[in-house]
């Protein structure tokens, strides 16, 4: 099974860049030729271009939701999002992009798109390259969660082979 892990975020917008830091840490730790790790400072249709051709995509991104405490990490499926939004009105959403691709006969959209959402109190609106203390703490936790997920995937695969 080929997996792509993408840290999604903006490197110059404070806590919004947390997904990128998680991806960088994973890149240091994951030694599996079937797993590619990259960063994406984009969304929607460009994001889809980056995950196409893989069996599974793991996205690490920030979320804001009044029911999730800041600093919490949620493992979500792409289907859990009833709406995907950003400040950016010049794009379509990732679920829409995937649906579009499938409708046009694209068979290489990953079957499994999992999102690790790190909850922020609000979207940062101040430029900066550093994470806040609170959000910094989520980096090792998220890394561990994804490492175990990769281990599970590997186990599943072995069982499937039996």
């Amino acid at each position, binding site marked *: 099974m080929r997996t792509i892990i993408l840290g999604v975020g903006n490197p110059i917008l404070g806590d919004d860049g947390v997904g990128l830091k998680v991806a960088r840490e994973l890149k240091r730790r994951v030694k599996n030729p079937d797993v590619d790790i990259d960063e994406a400072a984009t969304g929607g249709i460009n994001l889809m271009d980056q995950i196409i051709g893989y069996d599974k995509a793991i996205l690490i991104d920030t979320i*804001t939701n009044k029911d999730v405490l800041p600093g919490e990490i949620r493992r979500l499926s792409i289907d859990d*999002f009833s709406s995907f939004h950003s*400040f950016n009105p010049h794009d379509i959403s990732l679920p829409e992009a995937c649906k579009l691709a499938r409708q046009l006969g694209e068979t290489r959209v990953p079957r499994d798109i999992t999102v690790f959402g790190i909850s922020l109190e609000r979207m940062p609106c101040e430029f900066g390259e550093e994470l806040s203390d609170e959000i910094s703490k989520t980096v090792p936790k998220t890394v561990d969660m994804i490492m175990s997920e990769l281990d599970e995937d590997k186990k599943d695969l072995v069982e499937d082979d039996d």
Partner: protein
Amino acid sequence: MKTVTIDPITRLEGHGKISIFLNDHGDVENAYLQIPELRGFERFCQGRRAEDMPQITSRICGVCPVAHHFAATKALDDAFHVKPPSAASKLRELMYCGYFIYDHILHFYFLGGPDFVVGPDAPAGERNILGVIQKAGLDVGKEVIKHRAYGQKITAILGGKATHPVCGLPGGVSKGLAKDEVQEIKDMTKSCVDFAKFSLKLFDDVVLKNKNYVGMIKSDPYNLETYNMGLVDAHNKVNFYDGLIRVTDQKAEEFLKFPGKDYTKHVSEHVEPWSYMKFPYLKKIGWHGLKDGKDSGVYRVGPLGRLNAAEGMATPLADKEYKRLYETLGGRPVNSTLAYHWARLIELLYATERATELVNDPDITSKNIRNPVGEPGEGVGVVEAARGTLIHHYKLDKNGLVEKANLIVATTNNAGAITMSVRDAAKGMIKKGEVNSGILNKVEMAFRAYDPCFACATHALPGGMPLEVNIYDKNKKICKTIKNV
């Protein structure tokens, strides 16, 4: 009074908020569009190495990284007193055409087009690219995807990376073009020209042959008689990458023409208490509030602004289409906000033709792509982003570190006009306190035509911008809230 509130699941703070104030008669008195603003960019840039600016600024916005990249690179050319070799300028412009190709295709087919192709009153769930494909056919969908990807690919070949280019350097570019890459780009641009022609034909069939749409385009709520601004070449033809800033008046006469570095002499920014957004205006006229006409310094940029501010397109097919637009809609200038969509497709055709010219230029494979830089100083770089004139201005210290940075982005240039268009669209939909249920989309259509991008870097799992409309009664109390989620 009834309040309707539906919360979006995520990115609550990303709301665009429209506040509509009603008067004693229940008619619209005023409407304001508020958008989240990013702060502290100037401070963020201070003390950074000048040559990092093209990379840093391309991160401001997930939508137009290429435009920021080259506005920054051109500001550095100016600040280091260096002129790039001709091949470098051509490589930059070719890449820039790739950016226009993918950006304009995305807007027409994914964002603006659905209102026309699927229909402005169709349910929101159908007014999207999937609805367009359902109507126009799967094959059209495949062509859309293919050519948008070609635009991206051209940009990636020249820029080193698809979304955030790394090629621009003061005095030139870091990467030339190999012979096999030239052939690849030639094949793609050839196909793109045909696709642009097809898109204009589609616009003809779907929009111009529909009397209702033409009526809507010409209707009052979607008309603004502002000044128009855009870059032009030596023959006053539209240019995206370089030239002089030209401003034309309500009769399409030249009002101003100046090099980018003089922008502070001609443009000033007004601050409104209710918005973080600044409202640029022409100094010579002054700020007289959110109104149009020759006595108001408000101007428009972007596809229609550019076409109005110029006297034609520099390539043959696009120029023909340019003439047809003005013949059809009653001569220059055209003031209909919805004509932005048509202008955008004419620019798409121009971008494909211009890219074809550039890639066939023997100079394009030259190895002479960078000139040595001089002493650091102050510089201004101006380009046309897909959505309008973009200005970068840096002051460097003697070590080449950034002392001051100022940016005026395209959507800021359009801030006054967008606010007025939103207000006028709202006026048409609210009469005597009765709110027409189609208000949200009609208001969205008004600002979507400008293809606004709120100079914001947030990427992430995007969709349409969450929008909230609050309607206030004469006592300034909220009487209705509508959201598009």
